[in-house]
């Protein structure tokens, strides 16, 4: 029950600050673009759109969310409440994944993707991975500009190889964990077990790291400038 309330609180926060409105608008624009692109482009275009935006939104927004919570002393309140660190983390992961999944579902339906359940599973895991990465960085910095700068190399590292793999699927890139996400988003199920296992493993690893950094952050809560 406590977790549900926390989750609903996060969803309300995201609605209040315009995340849903933003992605509603972006979905409309993406749909418009998908419809005007030649049919042969659609499959790749939708994979590119889903992977680079809704799936990766956690990395973009997590810094601002955590810093606002720090500056408004929300974290101080949470730290002394019965809410556990893992509940806090999962609430962030699931609330942002909800937006990722909704937007991806709409785009996949419009583009006529062939394996939507697998695509959504991949988006959920990828969104979680990006959110956890964002959370790990956000717990270590004190300004939004610092966060933006710190996430630029991460974004390049996490987004560029899978995008290259989308157009040039080389064996070498196949070993890059996030290429598994791109493979599933494109609807390929030849190695679905392997890809889901890889993404699950990366998610679990990042969850442990995020847990450790969030615990540390809660212990050293102090004033920050947002």
């Amino acid at each position: 029950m406590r977790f549900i309330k926390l989750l609903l609180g996060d969803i309300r926060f995201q609605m209040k600050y315009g995340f849903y409105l933003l992605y509603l608008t972006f979905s409309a624009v993406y749909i418009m673009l998908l419809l005007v692109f030649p049919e042969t482009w659609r499959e790749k275009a939708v994979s590119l759109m889903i992977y680079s935006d809704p799936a990766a939104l956690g990395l973009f927004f997590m810094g601002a969310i955590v810093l606002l919570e720090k500056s408004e002393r929300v974290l101080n309140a949470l730290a002394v409440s019965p809410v556990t660190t893992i509940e806090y983390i999962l609430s962030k992961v699931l609330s942002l994944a909800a937006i990722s999944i909704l937007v991806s579902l709409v785009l996949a339906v419009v583009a006529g993707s062939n394996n939507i359940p697998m695509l959504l599973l991949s988006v959920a895991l990828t969104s979680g991975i990006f959110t956890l990465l964002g959370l790990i960085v956000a717990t270590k910095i004190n300004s939004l500009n610092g966060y933006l700068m710190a996430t630029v190399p991460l974004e390049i590292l996490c987004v560029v190889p899978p995008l290259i793999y989308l157009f040039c699927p080389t064996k070498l890139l196949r070993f890059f964990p996030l290429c598994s996400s791109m493979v599933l988003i494109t609807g390929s199920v030849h190695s679905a077990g392997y890809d889901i296992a890889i993404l699950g493993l990366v998610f679990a690893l990042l969850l442990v790291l995020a847990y450790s950094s969030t615990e540390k952050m809660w212990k050293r809560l102090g004033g920050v400038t947002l």
Partner: protein
Amino acid sequence: MKAMLLSFFQMFRQMKKDAMLLAIAFVPVLVGALFRFGIPFAETQLINYLEVEQIISPYYGLLDLFLVMLTPSMYSFIVAMVVLEEADERLISYLAVTPLGKKGYLLSRFGMTGIISLFMSVVVVTFFHLASMNAAMLIVLVIVSTVQGICSALLIVAFSANKVEGMAVGKFTMLFTLGALAPFFISGKAQYLFSALPSYWLAKAVKESNYTFTGIGLLVTAVWILLLVKRFEKKL
């Protein structure tokens, strides 16, 4: 003018303290280099892999336009974040009653940053453009894109109460640049759906090598700026 310059240098001093903020200012150069060398490389690889004559090269003009819009977009985001912070600290209300005034404040923040962005943009585009485009067209595109950047910054500060909203609206301002896709990918009158976006007119100017469209783009941007300044002033 003196008050405005003092106000601008005060902001610059504040930004200098934040090394990260200054580092972001040089990101367009890095991205420009990636554009200049990465895209032709990707094109060669794709042509060989897919065994076709060309894939990305017909759109080099469009990619150049995105490169032109990149610097103003990034700089406008930085200055919007600074202004949001000053609004949060109630600094703007105090500055507005000094000889600087509201308009002076806006000019010192957005106008001065626009001028720096314009010079940076010229450097980035000169060194890293992909298509062969005449210098006059590039300069005009840079000028209108700079004004469009100011417009994006105003949009962020006019509709955001804090930096989280600033991030969301900042992402929303990306739509300003997406209008550039319309003339290249949408045929017929449907493309005019994007005519409220300045980038649409800039892309049309690039595609048809017609300066008139850059003029329309500038006019559209001016209307946006007037509306947004009014909205922001009400908020102050």
